[in-house]
């Protein structure tokens, strides 16, 4: 075998680095440790899944990335900047580069689809009316809802609402899109269409995607890497094309393997 044919392509730079993150919440009967000492890095252009049972801490971990939750210990680095060290206004600026979508969509009910997508552009001034209109049209076209600009969220289906939320998250041209259980409120077919939009955005615009889910098919359909979380820790980190090397119960379930590692 020729020794020099297999050259590793240069890995893309790290976009998100989480260092020894810890987060607990006060609860009845003592503190609940949602995230215990997680260290993780996510590279530019990746589609990175975080999977785990409910209560495993995966949503908290995602919310730590844009500091919706402040870590008790550890630090979050985004594009080479330590987010925890930024002033409030600098963090608000930085959040334009970190889009986020949610399970319950979280659209403004009293604003039209157009105004929802325009929201992130309007709160960060600097855009003329024409620029806002143009960008909103662009984003709605990306998610295939160009004809819904004047509708209100209540007039849309769940899948359409999530696509509006994606368009809104894209409006300020983020480099990463954080997705918190984006398909858990949707049926299988609608899930498919939302995942297609996410994959498309990743492919066409190079937007890094971090997606939290408890649905194994979502990971298989979309992700390139996956972190398995249990009780606040990342217990396994796998490339999705090599799932069969999984050792944890959930990882093996993801790979479609029997739950127990066979004793050789």
């Amino acid at each position, binding site marked *: 075998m020729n020794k020099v044919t297999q050259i590793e392509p240069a890995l893309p730079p790290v976009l998100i680095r989480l260092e020894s993150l810890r987060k607990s919440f006060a609860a009845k009967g003592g503190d609940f440790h949602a995230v215990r000492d997680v260290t993780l890095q996510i590279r530019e252009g990746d589609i990175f899944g975080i999977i785990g049972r409910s209560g495993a801490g995966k949503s908290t971990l995602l919310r730590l990335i*844009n500091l*919706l939750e402040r870590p008790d210990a550890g630090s979050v680095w985004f594009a080479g900047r330590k987010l925890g060290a930024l002033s409030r*206004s600098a*963090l*608000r*600026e*930085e*959040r*334009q580069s*970190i889009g*986020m979508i*949610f399970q*319950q969509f*979280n*659209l*403004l*009910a*009293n*604003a039209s689809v157009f105004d929802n997508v325009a*929201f*992130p552009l*309007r*709160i*960060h001034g600097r855009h003329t009316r024409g620029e806002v209109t143009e960008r909103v049209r662009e984003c709605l076209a990306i998610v295939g809802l160009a004809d819904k600009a004047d509708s*209100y*969220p*209540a007039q849309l289906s769940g899948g359409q609402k999530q696509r509006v*939320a994606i368009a*809104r*998250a894209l409006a*300020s041209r983020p480099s990463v899109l*954080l997705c918190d259980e984006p398909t858990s409120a949707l049926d299988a077919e609608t899930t498919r269409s939302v995942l297609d939009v996410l994959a498309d955005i990743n492919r066409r615009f190079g937007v890094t995607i971090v997606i939290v889910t408890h649905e194994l098919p979502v990971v298989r359909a979309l992700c390139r890497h996956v972190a398995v979380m249990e009780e606040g820790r990342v217990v396994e980190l796998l490339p999705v094309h090599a799932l069969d090397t999984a050792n944890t119960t959930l990882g093996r379930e993801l790979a479609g393997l029997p739950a127990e590692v066979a004793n050789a």
Partner: protein
Amino acid sequence: MPENISAILPELWISIGQTGLMLALALSSAVLIGGPLGVLLFLTGRGQSLEQPAANALLGWLVNTVRSFPFIILLVALVPFTRAIAGSSIGPVAAAVPLSIAAIPYFARLVEQSLREVPRGVIEAAHAMGASELQIVVRVLLREARSGLVLALTVLAVSFLSYSAVAGVVGGGGIGDLAIRYGYYRFQTDVMVLTVALLIVLVQAIQFAGNTLARRLDKR
């Protein structure tokens, strides 16, 4: 037309004007001062972005205290304050001072309550997009709660239409005062019936306008 009624007609028009003036002043100060106070009550509350337990408790205590005064007591107790602000302690403008003092904390509570109806996730999404607190108040809270806020103002208007009757005690005048002076003290039942009927129509109209506007504004 019954004799009593034709006799008080000129005074009736004046009374309607006085009631309108008292309500307009009281509701304006409720919106301009009570509104921001309600927003502050909400934002400093538990689990909100400006959580400040001490400030919240102080504001809450203040609001409760003013709201615990029976209105007639507040009216009398505030006479020196009223004189300082309105230059006189009698007349509709003077009566609007205690009415405003009572309306401000009332509306603040109603605003706080309406804002609580805004889903947490929507506020959180705005934070995630990098919105400032002020942008969240204006572009998220007030927008999402707007139909509730209109209904809150409607409740306030109806309550204070009836409070304004008490203002007769300090010479505030108004429709309610007319009912007391002629209908009650002088046993002119026809005047009483007329004024009460007028108040019923007014309340129905206010409520109808509020409901209609709230429904139009609500896109949920």
